[in-house]
């Protein structure tokens, strides 16, 4: 399985600094901008602000602190990462992400392909455990509990986090069996309970009226948009606390996308939603908070409106206005 390291804070930072790119060498284009961080981003506000503090001598200092907007400090957090790093073999995909996901809100992760959004999302429910040669450092906390702790039952963790994937992936079973899959593996056999949960979940996913007459037919006979909403219903049926969505609309037509977006909008408050998306308009439409990631780092994170209308960093502005990425 995945090797998990828990370095002490000192060790983690020392490594981060050692491996940080030196100024003037092969810096990615975003770095110069980051160096002149916006003065608004003061570290340590209320002791809550998770700005990554440079801890070492000026020569080693790497100005990688993300721009975290102050509004986030006022939120209650359900999920948080602390200097979280992830390696695929020798390749490091996440370079120390420190962020907090507010409870009951929709948080969008945006950024160009390969920036680590999906990797981060899949770290929250430890789905990366399935991939070989993945190594993680730093911490992810869910409701205060370190999810990589030995005592944590990963099965229970995943039951608390529903996930919806880029490509809709209903199982080759009936629609009903798809929705109640999580209950089935939990050992639920009572017909009445299964039927109830099925109806409730399909209603939440705005799918009930379309499929109520064919619950016992194969889910593979549904249209793409219906399949994706079925996957959402399946995730909701497990009554998770967090809903992780990995580009849930990228394979859907505009009408189906609209339906799924309405659904996500309706789910706020009830669930904490983290959604990865390539579609900037979608992030703007459905999310309360938006995090912009670039090359495995968190660049800017704040209320969606600020990120799109009044971003603190030039790099964020360039990305959200479509000038790069």
């Amino acid at each position, binding site marked *: 399985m995945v090797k998990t390291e828990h370095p002490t804070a000192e060790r983690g930072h020392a490594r981060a600094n050692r491996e940080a790119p030196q100024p003037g060498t092969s810096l990615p284009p975003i770095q110069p901008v980051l160096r002149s961080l916006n003065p608004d981003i003061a570290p340590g506000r209320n002791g809550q602000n998770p700005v990554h503090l440079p801890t070492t001598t000026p020569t080693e200092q790497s100005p990688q602190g993300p721009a975290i907007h102050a509004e986030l400090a006022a939120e209650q957090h359900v999920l948080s990462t602390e200097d979280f790093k992830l390696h695929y073999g020798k390749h490091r995909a996440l370079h120390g992400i420190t962020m907090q996901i507010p409870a009951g809100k929709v948080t969008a992760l945006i950024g160009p392909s390969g920036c680590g959004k999906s990797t981060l999302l899949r770290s929250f429910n430890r789905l990366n455990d399935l991939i070989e040669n993945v190594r993680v450092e730093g911490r992810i906390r869910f409701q205060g509990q370190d999810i990589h702790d030995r005592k944590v039952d990963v099965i229970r963790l995943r039951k608390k986090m529903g*996930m919806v994937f880029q490509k809709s992936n209903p*199982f080759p079973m009936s629609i009903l069996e798809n929705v109640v899959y999580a209950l089935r593996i939990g050992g639920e056999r009572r017909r009445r309970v299964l039927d109830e949960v099925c109806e409730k979940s399909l209603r939440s996913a705005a799918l009930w009226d379309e499929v109520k007459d064919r619950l016992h037919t*194969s889910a593979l006979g549904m249209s793409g948009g219906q399949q994706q909403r079925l996957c959402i219903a399946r995730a909701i049926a497990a009554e998770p606390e967090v809903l992780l969505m990995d580009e849930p609309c990228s394979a859907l037509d505009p009408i189906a996308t609209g339906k799924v977006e309405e659904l996500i909008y309706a789910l706020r408050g009830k669930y904490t939603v983290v959604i990865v998306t390539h579609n900037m308009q979608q992030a703007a439409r459905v999310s309360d908070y938006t995090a912009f990631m670039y090359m495995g780092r968190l660049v800017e994170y704040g209320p969606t409106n600020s990120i799109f209308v009044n971003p603190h960093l030039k790099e964020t502005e360039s990305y959200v206005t479509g000038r790069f990425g």
Partner: protein
Amino acid sequence: MQIASVYIRGKSHLMFGLCILFTAVILGLLGMVSGYLISLGYKSVDLALFTQLPVPAGAAGFPGGLQNGIVGSIIMIAMASLIGIPIGMLAGIYLAEYSSRSWLAGPVRFIADVQTGVPSIVVGILGYELLVVPLGSYNGWAGAAALAFIMIPLVARTTEEMLLLVPRGYREASVALGATKARTILRVVVPAAFGSVITGIMLAIARVAGETAPLLFTALGSRFLESNPSRPFPSLTVQIYHAAMEPYKEESRKAWAGILVLLALIFVLNVTVRLTMRASGYGARAAR
């Protein structure tokens, strides 16, 4: 441009024609073989073939039927399947789902591939040494075990290949819903691949149904209707073999009829399994 377009179209027509031609060649060969079999065998297929035991030359009722062989083959293939399919499928599941970090996978896969290529007579000798000599007599168990030995690598490798074709999205979705790996495999992965795994199993059964050599050294064959696998056990293929060796015309006609019956049995088994699967919903899944 005009010339180029005609040239390209010509090439396309030529390729299409070649595909049709070679498909026709393959189908023609198949048709010839089965047509030849049917033309030689159909006249000798009668009720007596299924209801009578073989009768030696010179005795009244010569040449008799193949009842003991048909029943014996069915019993022995059923026993071989009961041993071979579970072991083969579990080995295939291991190879596809669990072996990625294990040193064992490479050797297992290699041995399975070599085992598929072992001449069946060698399997017969192995069965003779391991199950006939220690038990002191030719017996049906040894025959079933030899057939199972041939089935296992076939079933294991097809199961592995078919499970690997199941999209990763299924596994991820199931695991993300809090299923354990074993449950994911049992409830999602194997059912998704079930249709094609069944096809592989059918091919393996058809393959062993036609085996003669391993049975000559293990089950030996018997002229009686046998129900005790601890004794020498009759089988259709061995009886066909013996009948074909006889100098009498009646015996060789019985051999042709036996081959036809064997083919028909495999065909009926295939169709039955497929229809059952379709009725239970697996056919639709396999089609996707």
